[in-house]
């Protein structure tokens, strides 16, 4: 096992501590609850439209960013709070390796929870509506979205003591607020990266998600490319912070 793998493995288990995981899982199941209650008595067509409105909006705009925020901000934030940063950094490791390992841990922990939420939602849709098509695209889209949020929130956790608060302001003011309300801003929304990947993988979804996508073009390839660019930027920013900041 390499040093970076060891960091990723230990960090993932630290991030998935029992109490935090249960709390995040409860949040992850919220879209399923909304869908379960909302779809009863609806026609198949209405239920399909409803699935792509409230439950998916909740999953992509609130549940995934909040879960990613909690995990990613803690990835290096907890190391700082526990004074264990020196344990990681006084090592023969390049800073980018530490940054990448922490991003991987944040991604794994957040995806384990948000992905479970998406899986349960997809299975519920399958069982109630008889269509399994959204299941895999949902998981792919959530995986992409979690990676982008990890790229944003891991360095934030190192930079700010109140990273979760700053992240929540970003999520609720920007992702769930401004970028939804003003169509032209959708291009700069992280939520739309996941939604566009999902819409690109499910036939008919672009029409159903037209309002939510705004000016963003559906497509998994484009979403993956954006994710990759942001991930590299996140690793670079985290490495630079680890290199330049006084870690005392």
């Amino acid at each position, binding site marked *: *096992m*390499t*040093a970076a793998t*060891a*960091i990723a493995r*230990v960090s993932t*288990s*630290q991030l998935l*501590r029992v109490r935090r995981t249960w709390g995040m899982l409860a949040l992850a199941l919220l879209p399923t609850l909304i869908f379960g209650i909302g779809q009863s008595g609806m026609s198949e067509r209405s239920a399909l439209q409803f699935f792509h409105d409230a439950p998916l909006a909740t999953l992509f705009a609130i549940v995934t960013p909040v879960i990613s925020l909690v995990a990613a901000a803690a990835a290096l934030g907890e190391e700082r709070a*526990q*004074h*264990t*940063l*020196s*344990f*990681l*950094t*006084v*090592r*023969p*490791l*390049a*800073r980018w390796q530490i940054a990448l390992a922490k991003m991987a841990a944040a991604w794994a922990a957040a995806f384990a929870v948000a992905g479970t939420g998406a899986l349960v939602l997809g299975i519920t849709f399958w069982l109630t509506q008889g269509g399994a098509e959204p299941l895999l695209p949902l998981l792919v889209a959530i995986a992409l979205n979690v990676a982008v949020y990890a790229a944003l929130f891991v360095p934030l956790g190192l930079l700010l003591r109140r990273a979760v608060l700053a992240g929540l302001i970003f999520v609720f003011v920007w992702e769930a607020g401004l970028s939804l309300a003003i169509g032209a801003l959708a291009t700069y929304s992280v939520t739309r990266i996941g939604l566009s990947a999902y819409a690109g993988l499910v036939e008919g979804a672009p029409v159903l998600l037209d309002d939510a996508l705004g000016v963003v073009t559906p497509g998994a390839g484009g979403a993956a490319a954006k994710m990759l660019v942001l991930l590299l930027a996140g690793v670079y920013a985290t490495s630079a912070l680890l*290199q*330049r900041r*006084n*870690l*005392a």
Partner: protein
Amino acid sequence: MTDPALAPDATVEVAAASKWFGQKVAVSRVTCSFGPGVTGLLGPNGAGKTTLLRMITGLASPSEGTVTVLGQDPRRHPDVYRQVGLVPEEDAVYPSLTGRQYVEYSARLSGVADPQAAAAASLDQVAMTAESGRRLEGYSKGMRQRTKVAAALVHDPQILVLDEPLNGTDPVQRARMIAAFHQLAAEGRTVIVSSHVLAEVERMADRVLAMVDGKLAAAGDVAAIRGAMSDIPFRVKVGVEAPRRVAAALVEEGHVDSVSIEGGDLHVATTDLPGLGRRLPRLARDLDLRLTSMEPEDESLESVFRYLVRRR
């Protein structure tokens, strides 16, 4: 004459290094070096010891000056960390890991070929094998300290930096750790140990660098430091019945620099601490009074260091 702050065969070199945080100067133009053997970094709390150690280990960058480890800047060349082990002052442990997992994790991060074997050997060195299956959150402070030392030693570093390593350890553990530091020094390693307790440093280190207010106050072997301190008064708090009578008797004898009574305790300033230690019990017996305590005052050490800085 060579500067006593500079060690022969230096592995760690600090050249006119300063560090400030905003308006606060933590370390001010310190020049010193460390070589094989145990070097004690002595000074009161807030003297700048921890900041200097953080600069040496690359956790903080000097605002001015340079710090090199084995000829390289550790912040630019992380490979140098293969030869550095750090025991920080803070707890710096993962509470949910067991002692063994923690030391093995340390071994993996340092690229040790067989982490399990290295961790077992290192835990054995600090006598923590029996407890190593328990989670760190259940350890006492002393046990955590020893486990941190094991984690710092696990990759067999040439340079070991220990910030207040004896904090929280009991006398038996302390003796064992001090013996381990001496053993490491005998193997030709550079061991840098900080402490604010002179008696601790005296037991651990062959060579001492004393710091106060971010400056180097004195350097040399322990005898030299003690010698430098010998001509300035030490303050001692004395617990005794009828302190006024004792104070009057001490002044009459003329072997003290000053006496004062604060809060019912007698405070004595003297340059002859051992002499005071001999005279006081005799004096109490002659006056038929009970002597209950005699403690050096913490700020006394600080004032000694301040004096040394002014003189340097």
